[in-house]
């Protein structure tokens, strides 16, 4: 019986290997990763203050000239490869966040802010992005922060 099925098994094994090879997804085609997106407002006026919920961003926010920081919105979602995630910004605008690459230690996001700007940023798993999304008006501007695997 083993002899009778040997040839068939060899052919099936070869076909399976070929199918596996052709059908295997690339490393970067992960199904999706969880992300936490926050929209925060930075102001130059008023007494210095930082929303306690933004304490994890202190190291990045302290590099900017804005002295008051408060959170305006938060969104948690599953970012899927090449599928834009829309996040509303106060004032009627929105930003598009797209996961364009995901590897073992790094992820790459594309951020599009209307027609004004688009960015592509690669960060390691333990980092986050702080990205200005509106022009400064009356000494205040909105930013978006993106944190993968929150």
């Amino acid at each position, binding site marked *: 019986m083993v002899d009778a099925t*040997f*040839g068939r098994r060899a052919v099936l094994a*070869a076909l399976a*290997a070929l199918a596996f090879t052709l059908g295997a997804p690339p490393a970067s085609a992960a199904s999706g990763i969880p992300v936490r997106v926050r929209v925060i407002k930075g102001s130059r006026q008023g007494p210095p203050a930082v929303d306690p919920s933004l304490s994890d961003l202190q190291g990045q926010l302290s590099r900017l000239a804005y002295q008051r920081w408060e959170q305006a919105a938060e969104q948690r979602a599953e970012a899927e490869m090449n599928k834009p995630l829309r996040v509303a910004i106060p004032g009627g605008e929105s930003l598009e966040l797209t996961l364009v690459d995901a590897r073992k*230690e*790094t992820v*790459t996001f594309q951020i599009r802010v209307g027609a*004004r700007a688009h*960015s*592509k940023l690669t960060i390691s798993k333990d980092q986050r992005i702080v990205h200005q999304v509106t022009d400064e008006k009356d000494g205040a501007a909105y930013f978006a922060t993106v944190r993968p695997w929150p």
Partner: protein
Amino acid sequence: MTRPFEQRRECTIVAPMLTAREGELSAEEVSLLDQHLQGCNECRAISLALAETDGLVGEALLAEAARRDFAPFVDEVMARVGAGPQEKASLWARALAWARAHRAAALMGTLAPTLAGLALIVYFSDSETPPPPLAGEVEVVAEGRAPMVLQTSEGPVVLLGGTDGT
């Protein structure tokens, strides 16, 4: 009727000459043999008997060979080694039989094209795929502005810059 001693001695000498083929004896030996046969009845009788049987065996073998038909010889040999024209097995069945008899070769023969294809796929996919992005790589495009990127250990900070380039 006994032969004299001298004649018997000569018989002993010429006896090997009786079976000699043409050209093997020298002229002197031929002369000696002829003289002896004229005078020795026994040796002449032996010589005549040999001449009568000479060639009979060869002729008999040739006659037997001519009688036999060798036409089916090749077919019989091929049938014995299992590759005769009468074998009607399909190509697939013969391939399977060969694979069973040569397992290692069949396995390698099956896997080799697959592995070669795999190597080509890996080679071309690698050559077409750009190198993986590194953490810290930033690309910002903001029309009419002077965007600025601050790199910190916690991640990048992107400022769009003013519309006047500030």
